[in-house]
Structures are given as structure tokens and as C-alpha cells.
């Protein structure tokens, strides 16, 4: 395969976008994990499920703000949804940014309702008890499954958005980036839940252990996709763009991948660490991965 050739200009997507990619991934991933716990778990996991839904919506709140602030005309954020040329809806199926804007709106609806239900179940918002009662049992599962579909989309479409361009690294990473960001978001969300579980101590240790086990699987999936990402860059002859100074960020990514694995496979070692160390390192790794993909392509 001959090397790719790029003469593009960078779009200067920087810190706001990094913040959105990070928090959007955590929002979608936390929602998905909450739903999985509700489906696969039992009554003892309900506390973790509620925390996942609350964390999802709180992580989601800054996302549209960050996206609007990144625009050159923040007041025109609604042009993503309404075509001001003809007054109809603005939807371009070929543009992941357009599809993602709609997905973010719909996911916001699911996340918000689940958030209200979770708060009511926690006794924090009595006015939302009717919502909580509706979401218990079958309807709650169905609601969660649809919300998870949108949440998972939010985790991964950001990678597709980057790939659907002509930028070096992003477009060379092609089919891998969407999956990589998704796996990374799931791993980061599991780490976030572990962090909250170990901070709050109102989540059953059994539940916490199973979240850690899931985290390790997500990390392995992410590691495989990172290798595939490198392969695509080598084939396109753009791998050097993500090396050099970016190796520092790769180290953070690597530590973030190893921390949950070590804490699971070598508990004797992990016992010497502060209890929050592994999830914090994992979250930093998730952030670093997005930072190096976003910045290396534009300034590598």
C-alpha cells in the first residue's frame, strides 16, 4: 500500500473538543454500564446503577457547552439542528458531526430522564418518584437499552468524525478510530465508577469487583485497537506524526492501560497503592489518548 499524501490545513480543534471527547465518552460509557448492571445484576447492584446514571448526566452537562464554545459563532449552535436556509431540520447523514449533534440531543433526553429516576431512587428528588416508578422493571430496561444505544454512539462517533476527513492520522486511522474511542470510553467509564465506588463506599464490594473485571476486559479491547491503529498509521506512512514528543502522552496511555490490569492480576502489588490510584491513572490514560490523537494530527 503506497503512503498517503496530505496537503490539508488543521481545523484547530483543541481544548474544548478534547474536553467534549473525554466527557462525552464518560457520559455515554457510564450510561451503558449502568444499563448493563441493571440487566445482568440484581438488587444489590442498584446503587451502582443509580450512580452510573447520575455520573452520566453530570458528565454530559458540559458537553454541549464545550461544543458551542468551540464554534466560531457559538450563538449559532442551533444551526447544527435547524437548516436556516429553508427552515427545515438540518441533517446530513454523511457528516458524523451532523449525525452526532442529533445523537447528543437524543442521548441527553434519555440520560436526563434516567438521571431524574436515579435521584428519586436515592431519595434526593421526591418530585421525580413517578419517573422512578415507571423506570423500574421492564420499561426501565427498555428505556435503558435505547439510551445505551445512543450513549454508545456518543462514545464512538467522535472517532468516526475525525476519520471522516482528509487529515493525516485521523483519516489514515480510518475504521479503527471509532472503535478505539468507544473501547477507551468504556474503560474510562468503568474507571470512573470504580473511583466513585471507592470514594463513596455505598456500592457493594462484589459489584465493585465486577466493575473492575469489566474494566480489565475493556482495557484489553482498547489495547488491541491501539495496536491496530498503529498498523494503519504504519501502512499510511504517518506513524511518525504520533511519535516524537507525543511519546510522553503514550506513556500516560500505557500506564492507564496497565493500572487496572495490574490491580486485578497482581492484587498484592496493588494493595500498596492508594485505592484511588488505579482508576485515576486509567482516566488520565483515556484523556491522554484523545489528546494525542487530536493534537498530533494537527500539530505533529
Amino acid at each position: 500500500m503506497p503512503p498517503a499524501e496530505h496537503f490539508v490545513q488543521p481545523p484547530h480543534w483543541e481544548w474544548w473538543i478534547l474536553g467534549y471527547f473525554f466527557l462525552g465518552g464518560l457520559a455515554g460509557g457510564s450510561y451503558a454500564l449502568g444499563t448493563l448492571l441493571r440487566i445482568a445484576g440484581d438488587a444489590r447492584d442498584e446503587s451502582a446503577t443509580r450512580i452510573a446514571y447520575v455520573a452520566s448526566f453530570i458528565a454530559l452537562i458540559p458537553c454541549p457547552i464545550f461544543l458551542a464554545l468551540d464554534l466560531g459563532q457559538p450563538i449559532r449552535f442551533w444551526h447544527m439542528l435547524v437548516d436556516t436556509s429553508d427552515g427545515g431540520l438540518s441533517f446530513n447523514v454523511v457528516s458524523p458531526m451532523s449525525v452526532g449533534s442529533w445523537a447528543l440531543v437524543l442521548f441527553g433526553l434519555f440520560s436526563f430522564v434516567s438521571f431524574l429516576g436515579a435521584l428519586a431512587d436515592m431519595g434526593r428528588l421526591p418530585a421525580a418518584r413517578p419517573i422512578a416508578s415507571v423506570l423500574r422493571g421492564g420499561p426501565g430496561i427498555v428505556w435503558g437499552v435505547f439510551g445505551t444505544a445512543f450513549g454508545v454512539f456518543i462514545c464512538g462517533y467522535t472517532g468516526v468524525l475525525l476519520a471522516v476527513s482528509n487529515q493525516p492520522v485521523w483519516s489514515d486511522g480510518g475504521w479503527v478510530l471509532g472503535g478505539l474511542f468507544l473501547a477507551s470510553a468504556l474503560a474510562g467509564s468503568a474507571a470512573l465508577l470504580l473511583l466513585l465506588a471507592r470514594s463513596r463506599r455505598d456500592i457493594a464490594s462484589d459489584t465493585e469487583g465486577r466493575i473492575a473485571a469489566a474494566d480489565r476486559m475493556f482495557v484489553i479491547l482498547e489495547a488491541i485497537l491501539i495496536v491496530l491503529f498503529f498498523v494503519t498509521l504504519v501502512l499510511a506512512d504517518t506513524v511518525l506524526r504520533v511519535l516524537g514528543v507525543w511519546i510522553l502522552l503514550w506513556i500516560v496511555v500505557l500506564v492507564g492501560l496497565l493500572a487496572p490490569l495490574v490491580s486485578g492480576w497482581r492484587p498484592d502489588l496493588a494493595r500498596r497503592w492508594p485505592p484511588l490510584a488505579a482508576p485515576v491513572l486509567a482516566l488520565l490514560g483515556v484523556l491522554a489518548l484523545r489528546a494525542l490523537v487530536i493534537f498530533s494530527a494537527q500539530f505533529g
Partner: protein
Amino acid sequence: MGFFTDTSICIGCKACEVACKEWNQLEGNKPQFLADSFDNTGQLDAQNWRHVQFIEQVPDNRGTLVQPTPIAGGQAWLMMSDVCKHCKNASCLEVCPTGAITRTEFDTVFIQQDVCNGCRNCISACPYGVIGFNDQTGTVHKCTLCYDRLQTGMQPACAKACPTESIQFGYIEDLHAAADKRLANLKQAGYAKAQLYGRDEKVYGGLNAFFLLMDQPETYGLVNERNAVLPRRNNMPGYVGGVATAALGLIAGLLAFRNGRMNGNNVGTNDR
């Protein structure tokens, strides 16, 4: 309608750049020394909708030719007035989420300033680095092919100002015929590397602003046919990769959450 830019007769006078700025009221960027031949424009962007490139292929101090000169192929000093290509399959138009980028009745690509919200997705997509972001307007800008002049039956300012007729404006079919004739003449004169770029459909379905080049496209910062690919090529593979990962991830999550329950609720102590 479109442009045919014949680089073999460009003399690098930059009249096109000046005329473009005059008509479109572009302030231009602050002048700077780029140490790049006679080029102090640098690149196409929000303030430069025409950019005259100077590509030096001249002997070094020892008299050695960096590139073989004329007749054998190529020129000693290549010049080209670069511009938006108004691609028939336009990457920028394809990814625009707001519908701000449209195709006009003249088959040109136009950015509606009152619709654009400055997301810059088009900048990431344009393979020629044509579109630029303007901090003052908060929107993106590029050549309009003088849409306002076309509406009143005038030709674009750059073509009007070009003293050598290196930039020609007209109906695409007429321009194609003129380009074919010119290329044949150059080939007959021995210019082996002379070639048309964007004349046929191999590059983005054909370019409404196409070129006669005296060297390979890459020499001028133009993607070659193999690399002239649309952003959408990664759409389906990207989503398929995402769906496959989602399936694996969700199954892994379900297994992890179920396994623990089946194994007797004793996993949690490992992570303390």
C-alpha cells in the same frame, strides 16, 4: 462555469491576488518574510483566495541542477496561481453539518456566511487546504468564484486581471477544449511532464477550477489521483468498526457482571 489555470504562462505577477482582495474586500494577512522564493502570501486561507506559488527548480551554487531543466521535462521556475477547485464531488460540502456550503446555479461551491457557525469541519475535509477560518467573522471563507460578479454577467476579478491569460474563465466545455489544445502544443514542443489536472473525473469527479501543470501534482501541493479521496470513504468502515467494538464491549460487560454473581460474590476484595 469555471477556471482553467495554465501554469505554463503564469509569470508570478500576483495581479490575481490583488484583484481578488480588491473586489472581495479582503484585508489580507500581515506581510511576512517566508524565505520561500517570491512568496509572501504563504497559503490559501480566509484572507487569501488566490495564492501564487513559486516553486524553484534552479541550479545550485555548484551549477548542479536540482531538477533537470526544460525540454527534458519541467521548468526552471514553476509558478501557479492556486485557488479553490470547486470540485464536482466536494469534500467540504460533503461534511458540512449546517448546510452552509452549497452548490450554486453556476456549479460552483459557495459558503453561506449567514448559515456557517464556524465548526471548521470543512477545513478538516478539504484536501487542498483551501478554506480558512476568519477570527473576526467567526466563520470560514474561501473563493466564491466571484458569485456576485457572475450574477451580473461579469467574469471573476482574478481572471479579468490576469495579464497573460494564465487564468481563463468560461464554460467548462470551452475551457476543456482550450486546455486540450494547449497541452497538445506543449507536448509537441517537448514538454514531457506537462499535464492537465482535474480535467477529467479522476480527481474528485472533475474540478471546475482545473490546471495545466508543468510537473507532477505533488510538486504544486496538489493530491495525486490515488490520494484524491473523499472523507466519506471512512464513514461506513468507521461505523462498522464502532458497532463491532460496541458488540464486543457490551458482551464483555455482561459477562463480567454475570460471572461475578455466578462465582459467589467474592471478587471485590481483589481490588481493595
